[in-house]
């Protein structure tokens, strides 16, 4: 089935089995391996991508449901070879340990910052509550998001 959708800003129309999951399409057809399969059950959040600007689990979306939608993966945040402000904030705040959960964390945070450039700590924690990190500390992650929000506000002043 030909499925037309926008992937990281580009209109694509691959011929796909519509009953496959978005995460498999991203990784196996488009070689975008940022989104990770942690649990395959919507619990861990490491496969999070944005669909029409909203964080969703790519393990819980069917390829056939993508028609007409916009998907943004962590790879899509890079512009002209430069990391996004949020990605830089993760690097600088040591918010990355083994890195497995990081793309999902970043995409959940991105979804939050697209709606709210001045989130409280509680709002950040709520936005990231569907993303589990097993090796580091959530504090650096929350700090990175706060930091990114601050820089974002400065840039948009």
């Amino acid at each position, binding site marked *: 089935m030909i499925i037309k959708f926008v992937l990281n800003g580009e209109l694509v129309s691959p011929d796909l*089995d*519509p009953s496959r*999951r978005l995460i498999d399409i991203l990784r196996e057809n488009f070689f975008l391996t940022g989104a990770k399969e942690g649990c395959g059950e919507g*619990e861990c959040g490491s496969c999070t991508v944005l669909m029409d600007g909203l964080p969703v689990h790519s393990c819980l979306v*069917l390829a*056939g449901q993508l028609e007409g939608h916009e998907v943004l993966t962590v790879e899509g945040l890079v512009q002209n070879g430069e990391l996004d402000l949020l990605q830089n904030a993760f690097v600088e705040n040591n918010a990355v340990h083994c890195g497995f959960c990081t793309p999902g964390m970043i995409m959940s945070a991105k979804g939050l910052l697209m709606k709210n450039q001045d989130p409280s700590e509680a709002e950040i924690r709520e936005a990231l509550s569907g993303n589990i990190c097993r090796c580091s500390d959530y504090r650096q992650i929350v700090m990175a998001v706060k930091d990114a929000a601050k820089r974002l506000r400065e840039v948009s002043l």
Partner: protein
Amino acid sequence: MIFVRPASIIELAAALAEKEGKTILAAGCTDILPGKIGRPWDADRIIDLTHIPELQQIAVENNELFIGSCCTHAQIAENGLVQKYFKALAEACAQVGSVQIRNRGTIGGNVANASPAADTMPCLILFGAEREVIGENGECITGFCLPLPEDPSADSGTPVSAFAKLGDRDIVTVARIQLAAKSVIKDGRLSAVSVVLGAAGQTPYFCEEAAQVLEGSRAEEELLEPFAAALAEAIEAHIPGRTTLAYKRSAVKGPAAEILKKLSLELYY
């Protein structure tokens, strides 16, 4: 595998009428897909429900609020009409799973999946929602109609409602107990109180004795003990001998306190 993507109710009805072997209706897929890694589908056909605008509508029609079956929890939680008339439902949807789950999971899927812990169910029952269906056997839910409360006036009073959920964690948690209550504030007191208990039996149920405790009151703190006791009795009657009974009898005090607090805030602000 046949994949059908109707773009309107008419196309959906036509797809449902076709007999194409075993069919799965797919909405947000947050119940269908977990655990499906590499496993074959036990179906011949998938009908996608997410491209039908009519199913994504929330609108007032003839003194009722229509909520399309494919409205997501996030959409319902943020909707002004739901917040205004059916606050308990907005609160329940706001507590479903995580952000990602709320952005995909739908009210129709929540009901059709029929989990005893489905968070929207106690509220739909509390508000007397009617389900609209299509298909030869009514197999597809198109939406829910919730009768609007009377417009606030001195005579009818101001309608209020609240939802509380107790789980193993504070957030992203499966309900062990749900409590939903509605009332009308008249002369500074609660009247026409209804209370529904959920996740404490196969299906949610009204708890008349607990509602009676609050009737005519100002949701005072002192009512917590008798309110929780009435709820505990109802739980005992619905799950006698169940291993979780002792826990639920005592734990219901938590959501009971939350409901009292929320109703008292409505009374004073």
